[in-house]
């Protein structure tokens, strides 16, 4: 820490620290580069050049392949597995899934959070406590009964089934937003009240517009979580109609019995999956970093 002397001479310790940091950065990036390299490697060149760090004959054919641009016969001819996982559809499913979860969860949680922060009603503390307690339940306890519930609702294999448990609430989102709403200056709401506004009006017209930052934060966290969610969609909708990207990746990986993995196709699909995350990071980098720092990760 150079808190003491802001302009110290570049010492050995500093150099070492830079080296360590650089090593970490390389370690972080290298797997993604290997992914990219494999994705642009021609399937037939894959095994011969597996150990190379540079593609021997760069090609976009894998992307065409996983986007459904070639039929099974052509894929097989290229040395792929011939499996067809419709990544375009999975991409759309993922986008829809993420959007629904983000919009519904954030909206519903924000409303509840406001009620907990500002409104008086019998049982408020108890219900809030229970909501918070819901975060303590390990997912593994809930997935079986939830699965059965979704089945009983007839929602297995549907988007509704995938989204439902996430859509109505999240203890974390409610807690997070409530903390923020508590810090919204009460004066503002009182001023509006003096002007004759109702509570819902205040929530919608004053509190929400003032809370774009925490809303964006929570939306971002929820979105990242949803985009990467594997287990629940996998259990509820493994079939190809409703597959989301992580499930599609997993399905694509295990196409042929006892067969080999179609690595170049898989890495191309992986690359496609990573892109939105990279894009998010590039556009909203600071916000993402701060959100995650805030949340402590979920």
């Amino acid at each position, binding site marked *: 820490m150079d808190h003491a002397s802001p302009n110290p001479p570049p010492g050995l310790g500093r150099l070492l620290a830079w080296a360590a940091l650089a090593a970490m950065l390389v370690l972080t990036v290298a797997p993604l580069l290997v992914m990219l390299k494999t994705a642009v490697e021609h399937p037939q060149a894959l*095994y011969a050049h597996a150990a190379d760090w540079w593609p021997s004959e760069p090609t976009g054919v894998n992307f065409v392949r996983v986007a459904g641009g070639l039929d099974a016969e052509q894929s097989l001819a290229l040395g792929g597995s*011939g499996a067809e996982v419709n990544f375009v559809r999975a991409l759309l499913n993922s986008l829809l899934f993420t959007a629904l979860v983000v919009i519904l969860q954030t909206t519903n949680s924000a409303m509840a959070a406001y009620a907990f922060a500002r409104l008086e009603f019998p049982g408020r503390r108890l219900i809030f406590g229970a909501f918070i307690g819901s975060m303590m339940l390990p997912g593994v306890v809930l997935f079986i009964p939830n699965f059965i519930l979704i089945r009983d609702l007839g929602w297995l294999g549907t988007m509704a089934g995938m989204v439902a448990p996430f859509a109505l609430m999240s203890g974390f989102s409610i807690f997070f937003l409530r903390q923020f709403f508590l810090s919204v200056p009460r004066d503002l709401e009182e001023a509006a009240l003096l002007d004759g506004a109702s509570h819902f009006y205040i929530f919608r017209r004053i509190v929400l517009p003032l809370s774009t930052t925490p809303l964006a934060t929570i939306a971002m966290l929820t979105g990242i979580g949803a985009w990467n969610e594997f287990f629940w969609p996998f259990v509820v909708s493994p079939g190809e109609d409703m597959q989301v990207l992580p499930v599609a990746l*997993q399905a694509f990986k*295990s196409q*042929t019995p006892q067969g080999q993995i179609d690595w170049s196709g898989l890495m191309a699909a992986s690359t496609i999956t990573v892109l939105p995350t990279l894009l998010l990071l590039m556009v909203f980098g600071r916000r993402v970093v701060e959100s995650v720092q805030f949340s402590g990760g979920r």
Partner: protein
Amino acid sequence: APVQLRHLLWDASQRPMYQQCARDFERLHPGVQVRVQQQGWDDYWSSLSTGFIANTAPDVFANHLSKFPEQVDNGVLLDIAPLAQRDRVDPAAYLPGLYDNWSRQGRQYALPADWDTVALLVNLDMTRRAGIADEALQRLDWNPRDGGSFGRLIARLTRDEADRDALDPAFDKRRVKVFGYQTPAAGGMMGQTEWSHFAVSNGWRFQDAPWSQVLHYDDPRLAETLDWLAALPRRGVSATPQQLGRLGAETLFTMGRVAVVPIGAWMTGQMARQLKFPHAWVPLPVGPGGQRTSMMGGIGHVIWKGTRHPEQAWQWVRYLGSPACQQVVAQAGVVYPAIRGLAEVALQAQSRLGADARVFLATAQGKTFAPPIVANAAEINEVLDSAMQRILFSGEPAGPLLREANRQARALAAR
């Protein structure tokens, strides 16, 4: 509106031909549409389970002999015996045993779609360089003590970096360039391509009869077979799991790092397309009992009991088992149709790809055995796969492990 049927299968390479069948079928039955969907083997069964549970299972799907007993127990499969009787399906049209594999106590659960046997795939460049005549490959024998001529063959084909073979006392088993033979995996409860043919040719059998709870995994004849196989990597003749990785035996073979691999009939087309060197499909070695044996597996097409269109589903299954569709299947050259006489068509298709795979038919016509058919197969498979992995990859002695595994397996089969 036309009736919609969903058909699910796991092998991507078979999808095109069944789609062809579906188109043909739709022409014959204008009121029915068939969607052929595919889901990889790893998630196939859990996704089916979900379907049964959720009432969203496909109307018709490809089934596997090792998996269907559980479904029978759970009552999710439609008994097609009455329909077969009504429409006079002739069991004799199929290769012997294929139809009966899918029946139990007078009920019939599937019409067979194809069959498969196992053979050896040999890199001829290597045998020729080692001075082994092609004909010698047709008459291999094997025993669990010294491996027989098969054991010698694979030892001779193994080469270290100094090009010494594994019979050479100076052979360096830590620097192996080419392995003589590769066991693909642990094989679970079936050992379809891994060990079942060795063990059965050594006089072993899975169970007393299909559906029997009496399993014989504790039999010393299985144990000695496995011990022999497990020793191969230790001797440098096979790749260790470390060297094998996730590639699979076929890939090592394709890459020219293995001289001989056991291979299922369903791989013929794909291998023929990939291999860039002279190769041959040859019969499995003859065992100590004097016979060569192979598992005869195969897909059956079943109807989900929850289907809303049992009649149309049956018509589709029936069409799948009919000569018209089987002809299409045969012409694709991917698998061998279940109906007698069409294997030759498939073989012709394969020979157009440059593959001479007649050995699979010959094997089928010889002595074959069915995979184990037993209740609670999923759990039994877990237990056995774990034991097999310890034997084949960690080299632990097979006897005690198999006794314990068999105890558990019998308990599961009885539950």
